[in-house]
């Protein structure tokens, strides 16, 4: 069976699972059985059939698992966003459609050879920095929840950091392919680029006080640097620099301080000062309210979960228990309703996606393609780790999105761009394989 036929068959399986999940959310939300969920399922299926058809045309030899895995993750995301807020669910469906449209555009645009991107690596590099700094530009940036991540352009609000991440990976793939031999010698002067990027990361951290995004971009950089040079010392030095830098700047970063405090001691037995209302409160009722409620939500799931549509996210009078549930905390909703079994299954979908994406990198022939695919794959993994790890209290909680699952336009769209690039690399690797 050809790669695309396998993709179609797998997509069909994904559609069955996804429809069952969405139908559960629909029916339990309504309280009666009807078929109002069918148009939704059909719409999502149609969107991915379009993606499949374009893939059949432009990248016929690309890895057949990437698109079905994405489709399933999108469907799970849509199900839970709809479950939590039907209005946001409608918008999420539109965003997935926009994401697929951008996916198609990227495929069409780069259909001959995506490696032209390498030529513009410095443009991408500079754009990445500009995009990252954009939210802190006066008049443009919007501070939401204490972190400057958003930019308003007219009626649209988007997170430039999501796009900057991709630009950064393209730049690094091109730059490191050029310089990898020189860097691999590990001379002292070769630490220059490392220091420069580290400086950039610190600057972004101070400007936006967003630890998550800084950690994500710097982590991707270190992974790509290691892949290019094979020098573990770079990774160790990089991590040490990041930790040291963050520690030095710690006093200036109120937001980061608060996150770390919440991470270390979410529950207090005595009342502590609460900056939100200026009174003395237990920390679980103040700064760590969100994290603690989210942990309760996860714990309530147990092994089997409550079932879709039957979790508890509201008090009896209808006020939400966990703020930002459909964005940052979508995983705690999934964990409650699907339980350990279902949440692990969702994580395994991510594992499969990351593994297949890394495989794309392994089978690619040229350095740029390998580094590009590895950067994107590691980006998926690290982003998933930072947000879910934050929700699970493995690392300090920072507000970034769960790829393809969280509610949010810029996140969905940029993840589809990453998917398009991976499929282009994958197709080329197979097509030009030396036989």
């Amino acid at each position, binding site marked *: 069976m050809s790669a695309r036929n396998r993709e179609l068959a797998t997509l069909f399986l994904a559609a069955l699972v996804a429809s069952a999940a969405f139908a559960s959310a629909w029916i339990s*939300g*309504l*309280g009666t059985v009807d078929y109002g969920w069918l148009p939704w399922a059909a719409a999502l299926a149609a969107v991915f059939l379009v993606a499949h058809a374009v893939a059949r045309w432009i990248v016929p030899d690309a890895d057949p698992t990437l698109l079905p895995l994405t489709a399933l993750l999108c469907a799970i995301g849509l199900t839970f966003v709809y479950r939590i807020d039907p209005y946001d669910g409608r918008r999420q469906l539109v965003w997935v459609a926009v994401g697929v449209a951008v996916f198609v555009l990227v495929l069409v645009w780069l259909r001959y050879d995506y490696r032209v991107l390498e030529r513009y690596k410095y443009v991408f590099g500079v754009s990445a920095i500009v995009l990252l700094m954009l939210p802190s530009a006066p008049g443009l940036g919007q501070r939401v929840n204490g972190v400057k991540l958003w930019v308003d352009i007219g009626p649209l609000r988007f997170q430039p950091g999501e796009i900057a991440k991709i630009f950064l990976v393209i730049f690094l793939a091109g730059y490191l392919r050029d310089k990898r031999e020189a860097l691999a010698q590990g001379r002292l002067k070769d630490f220059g680029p490392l220091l420069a990027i580290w400086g950039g990361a610190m600057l972004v951290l101070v400007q936006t006080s967003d630890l998550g995004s800084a950690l994500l971009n710097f982590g991707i950089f270190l*992974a790509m640097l*290691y*892949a*290019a*040079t*094979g020098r573990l010392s770079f990774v160790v030095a990089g991590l040490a620099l990041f930790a040291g830098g963050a520690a030095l700047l710690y006093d200036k970063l109120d937001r980061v301080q608060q996150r770390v405090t919440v991470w270390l001691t979410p529950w207090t037995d005595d009342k502590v000062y609460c900056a939100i209302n200026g009174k003395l409160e*237990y920390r*679980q*009722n103040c700064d760590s309210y969100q994290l603690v*409620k989210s*942990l*309760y*939500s*996860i*714990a*309530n*799931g*147990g*092994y089997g979960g*409550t079932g879709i549509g039957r979790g*508890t996210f*509201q*008090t*009896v*009078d*209808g006020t939400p*228990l966990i703020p930002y549930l459909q964005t940052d905390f979508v995983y705690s909703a999934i*964990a409650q309703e699907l*339980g*350990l079994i279902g*949440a*692990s299954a969702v*994580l*395994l979908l*991510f*594992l499969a996606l*990351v*593994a297949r994406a*890394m*495989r794309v*990198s*392994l089978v690619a022939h040229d*350095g740029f393609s*390998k*580094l590009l695919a*590895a950067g994107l*794959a*590691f980006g*998926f*993994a*690290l982003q*998933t*780790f930072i947000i*879910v*790890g934050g929700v*699970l209290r*493995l690392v300090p909680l920072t507000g970034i999105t769960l790829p393809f699952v969280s509610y949010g336009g810029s996140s969905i769209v940029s993840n589809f761009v990453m998917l398009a690039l991976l499929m282009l690399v994958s197709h080329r690797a197979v097509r030009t394989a030396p036989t």
Partner: protein
Amino acid sequence: MNRQLTHVAWAAMGLIVALVLGTTYWQTWARPGLAARQDNEIQRVSEFQIRRGLILAPERVLARNRVVERRGKKLYFRRYPQGRLAAHVVGYSTASRSRAGLEKSLNGVLTGTERNLGGLVERQLDDLRGKPIVGDTVVTTLDLHAQKVALDALGRTCGAVAALDPRSGRLLVMASSPSYDPNVVENNFGKISKITAACRPAAPLINRATQGLYPPGSTFKVVTASAALETNRFSPDSEFYDPGYCIAYGKRVNNFDTSSPFGNLSLATALQHSVNSVFCNVGKALGAKRILDQAKKFGFYERPPLETPDGERYPSGLYRNGELWYPKRDSDVDAGRMAFGQERMLVTPLQMAMVAAGIGNAGIVMRPYVVEKIVSPKGQTVSRTERQRLDRAVGPVNARDIADMMVSAVQAGTGTAAQIPGYRIGGKTGTAETGVSGQNTTWFIAFAGRPGRRPEVAIAVALERQSLTGGATAAPIARSVMESLLRRGGNP
């Protein structure tokens, strides 16, 4: 480059595996701890989708459900048709203020989570079918007629009445004043804080029958007398001389009425007329620990058993700095004072009702209970409370002797106000003086039944901020509650 890429791949996959482990931790190991936390609303909220079992008194509904449809979901809120009548026993179950009373302690039964395997399987099946889960019904032993008599008699006075069947330990009355309406707890809690009574703070949410710690006054002489007879060093006929006072620890302790000392008298007469000096000397002769060990046999130093939440029942005994305290040596306590109910001795009305019940029941204290049975939604009796002996507090002969002394106290002593024609009543008054007029805690404890038969009722009444004696204030209330319980004879 592929070697490094493999390493990166392993690292990336390792990150995801760490997430699986993290999820496992919270959903298995940490789960029970998180579920039990006070600020975890999820447990509480999800239980509002369960149709809780009813709480019944024989023939009356104490707690039922009110169904509210919200966002296509049926939510079950509680209504308490009897209002303030049995508030302290039943308690409340709300979203905003958690739970209290039987609603709290029997939550597992009322939500159907505490069942045998067959019941749990059925519950799970209902859950899968999308049917609301229905909890088990709790039938209590309360006698609501007598309960109303007790609450009405208390009026604006702060205090409590506890009455039980000495033969079985069935709790018949548990009234605490002031009471509150559990229906307003959810949405109009301010109303409860505005409740006033003849004491301040009125603290209507406190169940004074099990949480009120009062000095027992002369009612404790029943315990001292039990200890005295049980040691065989004294008998009802033991002779004493009453000068009107007693010297304890070099200080003079007066009788209630110092103007007319009794002179020569027996232990029986001393109990009948509540003569402090006699019990002071008995106490000094016995020592504090022997009296306290006797008290323990009546249930002191333990939370009195009952199905209400542990936190709503306090143990009786000596208290020091707000904590229950048992002396290491006899010399740590002034046994003379303790023998007639002073010296940091604090007791609850339920405990004193158990003392009267033990004496009335030939020395055997039965384990008190308020839940008669638990009934499944289909009407099958899931479990029925068996009567159980708590302890033998006094030998049968000594119990009869003390019972006789208490009977003479009602016939011609301090407790004449408790007489009911045609019944044999034995009682003991108590007036714990604080030294300030109008600040006394007054008591009456009693047992009652048909002549020649075992008593059917044991009772304790405690009143706060009184200026008269227990015989004048508490005994009439005990009388009317006992009369209500005896006349209808509704107790098998």
